[in-house]
């Protein structure tokens, strides 16, 4: 049984889509409902990243900003990260996140699933960190 599980894991690893590999690397989830549930439990904001496999700016955003160690640390400490493919994951997330411009990032308050803030386009790590901090401040001020 253990061998079978190990083989399945290996098979998944070898044939995983790039978005799954990326999610594993940065410790983001791939399921919207799971992200909301986790964020409620951990009292964090959901940080939803919308990308597509054909989008070079999305790839650059993933490579240069989201994988940057300080950004990764901040994201894992203060947010529940989730990455979705705009088209391939269609139907598995609410329609309001079907944004015309990608990459896009939605900061979502998990209880009412309200969008606190949204950013679009490629951002450098320092710019994105500033946006994460702004979203956190907004969440804190709304809670008060």
């Amino acid at each position: 049984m253990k061998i079978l599980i190990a083989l399945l894991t290996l098979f998944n690893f070898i044939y995983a889509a790039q978005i799954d590999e990326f999610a594993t690397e940065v410790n983001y989830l791939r399921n919207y409902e799971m992200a909301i549930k986790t964020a409620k439990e951990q009292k964090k904001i959901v940080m939803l990243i919308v990308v597509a496999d054909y989008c070079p700016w999305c790839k650059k955003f993933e490579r240069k900003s989201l994988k940057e160690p300080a950004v990764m640390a901040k994201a894992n400490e203060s947010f529940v990260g989730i990455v979705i493919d705009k088209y391939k994951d269609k139907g598995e997330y609410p329609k309001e996140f079907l944004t015309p411009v990608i990459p896009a990032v939605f900061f979502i308050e998990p209880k009412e699933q309200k969008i606190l803030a949204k950013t679009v386009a490629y951002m450098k790590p320092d710019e994105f960190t500033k946006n994460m901090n702004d979203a956190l401040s907004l969440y804190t001020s709304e809670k008060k």
Partner: protein
Amino acid sequence: MRKLFLALLLSSSLFSASLYTLDNVHSLNLYFSNQTDFMSQDQEGILKSMVTEKLKKRGFVLGETDAPIFVVKINALEIEGTQAIHMEVGIGEEVITKRKGKIGTFAYTYLDSQFIEGYSDPYKNTLESLTLLVDEFITAHKEDNE
């Protein structure tokens, strides 16, 4: 609340120098292809020198074995009596793809181009546009390596 939302939305930069990733490109080999007939050998030499000097000034080491290729291609064609000049600046190098079997191939890992009219002085216009393309490459390289 609305203001803060807007501020956050606008604080993302809509433009970066390039969609390519130029991290750790330190050495290059120049490949210069001039397919036009409007410039003299001296003028072509000036273009090559301009490119070489700008790359060296940025700190690139030129001439190392197996370094990525810095490609400069210039073509001219006539469209309904108007001379059109196409310029391309790019980096070509061997890469390992994510295809099954991790296939290696030669690929452009940076590419930028311009299409201009020659007007009365095609050489001068070519020099200006090529300078701009090389400057844009250097800006993109700086941004990715800062």
